[in-house]
C-alpha cells in the first residue's frame, strides 16, 4: 500500500492516476450520447442509496436532506488515530483548492464504532477539522446496513490493545452527485487531487431530479 510520497512525486503520481479518470470523462459522451448542459460524470458506481441515521446533534438525519449538493462520504471512527484524520485532512485540502464553490459540498463521516461514537463524541471530534462535517452514527445494525449499501464493510475485533478492541473497515471515499448517485469510490491511495477533480465535476453537473 503506497503512502504519501514527497509532493512532486505525488503530483506526478496523481497525474498518472488522473489520466484514466480524464479519459473516462472524455469518453463518456461517446458511450452515453450527448446529454447537454454540464460536464459528463462517470457512470454510476453501482452502490449507494438513501439512508437514515443519527447526526452529531442527536437528531435523526436522512441523506435526502442534502439532495442537490455534491456529497463526500466515508466510513471511519473517532478512535482511529491515523487513516480517518488523514482522510478528513485530504477532504479539507480538496475543498480548500476548490475555493468558494466548495461551500456547496456536504461532507459525511459515518461511524463504524457505535460503541464509542456517540453524537456528542463525534461532534467534538469533527470540530477539530477545517471543513464542516456531518457526523453520523446509529445502532450497529443500522451502521452495518449503510456500509453494505455502499459496498463497504466493517468488523469490531477484540484485541490486546488498551482499548480492548479495534475496528477493521473499508477505506474508500465516495463522491455523490447532486442527485445522490455515487459516481466515484476513491481508494485510500487516491489523494486530494483525485478528490478535488471529482468534486469539481460533481459541482459543475446540474441536478436532474
Amino acid at each position, binding site marked *: 500500500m503506497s*503512502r504519501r510520497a514527497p509532493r512532486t512525486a505525488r503530483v506526478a503520481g496523481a497525474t498518472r492516476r488522473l489520466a484514466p479518470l480524464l479519459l473516462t470523462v472524455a469518453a463518456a459522451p461517446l458511450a452515453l450520447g450527448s446529454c447537454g448542459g454540464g460536464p459528463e460524470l462517470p457512470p454510476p458506481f453501482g452502490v449507494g442509496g438513501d439512508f437514515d441515521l443519527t447526526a452529531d446533534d442527536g437528531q435523526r438525519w436522512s441523506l435526502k436532506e442534502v439532495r442537490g449538493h455534491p456529497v463526500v462520504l466515508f466510513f471511519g471512527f473517532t478512535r482511529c488515530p*491515523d487513516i480517518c484524520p488523514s482522510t478528513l485532512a485530504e477532504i479539507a485540502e480538496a475543498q480548500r483548492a476548490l475555493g468558494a464553490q466548495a461551500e456547496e459540498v456536504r461532507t459525511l463521516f459515518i461511524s463504524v464504532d457505535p460503541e464509542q461514537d456517540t453524537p456528542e463524541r463525534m461532534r467534538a*471530534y469533527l470540530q477539530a477539522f477545517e471543513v464542516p462535517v456531518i457526523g453520523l452514527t446509529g445502532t450497529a445494525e443500522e451502521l452495518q446496513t449503510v456500509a453494505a449499501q455502499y459496498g463497504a464493510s466493517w468488523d469490531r475485533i477484540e484485541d490486546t*490493545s*488498551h482499548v480492548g478492541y479495534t475496528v477493521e473497515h*473499508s477505506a474508500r471515499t465516495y463522491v455523490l452527485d447532486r442527485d445522490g448517485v455515487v459516481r466515484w469510490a476513491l*481508494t*485510500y491511495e487516491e489523494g486530494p487531487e483525485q478528490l478535488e477533480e471529482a468534486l469539481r465535476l460533481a459541482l459543475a453537473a446540474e441536478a436532474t431530479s
Partner: protein
Amino acid sequence: MRILRLLSICLALGLPAACSDGAADAGGGTAAPGEVLSHGALELEGFYARTSFPPHDNAAAFLTVRDLGGEGDALLGVAVDAAQVAELHTMEVAEGERMRMRKVERLEVPAGGVLELKPGADHLMFFDLAQPWAAGDTVRLTLRFEKAGEVQLEAPVRAL
C-alpha cells in the same frame, strides 16, 4: 583580527561540529526535535507526533529507523512522558482494502534496512494522555530496541 582569523579557520575545518556536545552525535543521548540521532548501529530520524483529536484519548507518533550495522534489530517497546499507555501498532490491509490496526509486540528493523513508522502503516500509539497533544508541543519518547537498548527522543507535535 587574529581571533577572527582563527575562528574562520576553525569553521573552514569544521572544528565546531566536532567540538560541540550537540545531541545528534552522541550515541544514546537525547535528540532534539528534527535531529538525526545515532544509537548504536541504528540511525533514527524524522521523529514526530501527531496532534490528538477531541476527546483527546489517543495519539500517534512516527519515525524512521535505519540499520547501519547490517545485523538488524527490533523495536520492542515505547514509553512517553505525556501518556500513561504506549504501544506498537501496525496497519494491515485485509481483503484488498479493509484497514485494520493491530497492537504488536515487536517491529523488525531489517538487517541493513529501514523500519518506517508513518501514517497509514506501523506507528506508535498512545492512550490516557496527560493532556491534549497540541501543535508546537514536544513529547519525550523512550524507545527500547532488542539489541541497541533504550534511547530517548524529543518528538515535535505536528498538526496534519
